[in-house]
């Protein structure tokens, strides 16, 4: 069930560079559905379903944005830097959690007229000295936003829909795939949030004929959306045309549209005037790979209340199954 899969994947720890726990959780889930499962030196989880025909590389990134402990001051407050694209202006005053389960809060110094910045944030773990703070969270450990979810009918809000919702779609796709027409490689990538790094090396070793990234995309249709964005939550899977990382190769983009039409799936086109996905990394690998992205529309991306539609996610699975089994030549 999509919702159960989603909730199982929202909670395991996995900031960029420390994806061990989420990789293990996903590996357990997909083991019965893969012919081969391996991990590379950066931690990418690679699942293979053998088949004749072309090699299709799907990817969804496992890593989360978060914080890394740099030191603690003598009063016991941990100083941090960001792992991936944290917006310092809205990062303060949240619950955070470390890999070992220890919880704390991230707070922000008073700004007055200053601009927000990562160096104004700090994590409070209830310690009263540097030694105690570093015992609880040593230098180099990472923290992520603590999990809390709201269910609003078909919509669900929680931290890290980016990109655990896509991981859920990819897990469900592996379960849904039938007799193989092509070889399917499902890569749960690492370090997307710091520069699509996992996908770069995974694409190099997988050498696919087609690349398909599954990621969330910021949705429009919310008050004062600036710049205006076309994708809307609840209006179906979004076929990405362009973002700042890549322009989807026409054969892949058109193939996704053809799959949607064949299966009678309501879909949308989306264009983002910023951002990027793992598709860019696959596209420039070696001699070039036709690639694209199927996006899950998501409100409030990179906030603790990322909101998606479960039905949009289910439709993504249906669309990708038809694409892989009936459209790709």
């Amino acid at each position, binding site marked *: 069930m999509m919702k159960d899969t989603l909730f199982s994947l929202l909670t395991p720890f996995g900031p960029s560079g420390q994806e061990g726990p989420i990789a293990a959780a996903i590996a357990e889930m997909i083991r019965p559905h893969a012919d081969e499962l391996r991990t590379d030196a950066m931690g990418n989880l690679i699942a293979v379903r053998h088949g004749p025909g072309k090699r299709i590389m799907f990817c969804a990134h496992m890593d989360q944005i978060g914080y890394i402990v*740099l030191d603690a001051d003598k009063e016991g407050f941990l100083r941090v830097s960001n792992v991936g694209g944290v917006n310092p202006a809205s990062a303060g005053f949240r619950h955070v959690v470390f890999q070992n389960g220890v919880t704390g809060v991230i707070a922000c110094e008073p700004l007055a007229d200053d601009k927000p910045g990562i160096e104004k944030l700090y994590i409070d773990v209830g310690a009263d000295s540097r030694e105690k703070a570093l015992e609880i969270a040593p230098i180099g450990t990472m923290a992520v936003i603590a999990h809390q979810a709201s269910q609003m009918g078909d919509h669900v809000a929680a931290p890290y829909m980016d990109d655990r919702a896509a991981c859920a779609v990819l897990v469900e796709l592996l379960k849904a795939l039938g007799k193989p027409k092509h070889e399917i490689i499902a890569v749960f990538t690492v370090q997307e949030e710091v520069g699509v790094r996992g996908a770069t090396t995974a694409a190099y070793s997988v050498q696919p004929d087609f690349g398909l990234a599954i990621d969330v995309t910021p949705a429009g249709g919310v008050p004062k959306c600036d710049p205006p964005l076309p994708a809307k939550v609840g209006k179906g899977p979004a076929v990405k045309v362009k973002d700042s990382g890549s322009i989807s190769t026409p054969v892949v983009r058109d193939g996704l549209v053809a799959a949607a039409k064949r299966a009678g799936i309501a879909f949308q086109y989306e264009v983002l005037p910023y951002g990027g996905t793992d598709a860019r990394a696959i596209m420039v690998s070696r001699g070039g790979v036709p690639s694209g992205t199927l996006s899950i529309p998501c409100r409030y991306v990179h906030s603790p209340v990322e909101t998606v539609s479960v039905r949009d996610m289910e439709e993504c699975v249906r669309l990708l199954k038809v694409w892989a089994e009936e459209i790709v030549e």
Partner: protein
Amino acid sequence: MLLKELTACRGVSGSEGEIRARLKALAEERGGVCTVDRMGNLIARKDGGDASAPHVLLAAHMDEVGLIVTGVRDDGLLRYKPVGGIDPRVMVSKPVLLGDGRVPGVIGAKAIHLQSEADRDRVLDHDQLYIDIGAKAKAEAEKLCPPGTYAVFDSPPESFGEGMVVSRALDDRIGCLTLLSALSHGYRGHMICAFTVQEEVGLRGAKVLGHYLEHDLVIVLETTAANDVGDVPFEKQVCGVKKGVVISHMDATSIAHPRLRSVMESIAASAGIPHQPKRYLSGGNDAGALQRAGEAKPAVVLSVPCRYIHSPASVAAEMDIQAQADLTNAFLDALPTAWAEICK
């Protein structure tokens, strides 16, 4: 001392010939078998004979930031652009040396007696500054220093204070020095020392290495900016001079392989080598390119804290430079047995 010899050589990004030739000779003296590739990277290999030990790549960049002449004015002043990132605020009133012939020049600006209040507040950008070689007119200047001539700061190395050294180009001749030390020290298996080019203009030299080197892991030897004096708030200091070699968790271009990094830290601890983490994340280096060109490789960066980096007068501590070399050599000794732990 050897660091002084290395900083005396010229090697602005794109014109590394002189430092490359010196490093080649020094590497060969230490048993390195040398080749130069199509980007100009210098590769020195040394094999200890044990084929079961992992192939280790040690990398340091031999290029430095500098200037390049872009044009000549009618009055004989030279226009220039920086090669690599140089804050324009460090340029005024500095001497430079131009070309292989080391023609002396100076970068001046309007004298203070003639400056208005507004003049004094304004930052002069590179395109408002010129190099003066004393020529009277264009033809003379063009003959000596035509467009395309590379210039370095005239700032030779000097020991000062208690155990400190000031020079241009500490970034990254310090790393090159550590590579030479590793070649002398030796390694049981196959060691590749890569002296890369063009790090300062976009990690260019390192980007091609991944395509033909067959290493199992990479250690990058660098310098990193230390911002620890002048009443700087705690969280902006980055790291401290005389606190040891920096073993960082991450920077702008890479996240260190966790087990490699922690093995490195344990070796430093048990060998009593002073070391520290980085307290503010900034800066990029060749590790990003070397970790990810082709198949993924475990990577870690060892840096020497350096104040006023990318200026004519960068400063580092001799003990930190020594710590970088000591840790690298101790790691090489431990690597054959530590490899299993790293790969887990």
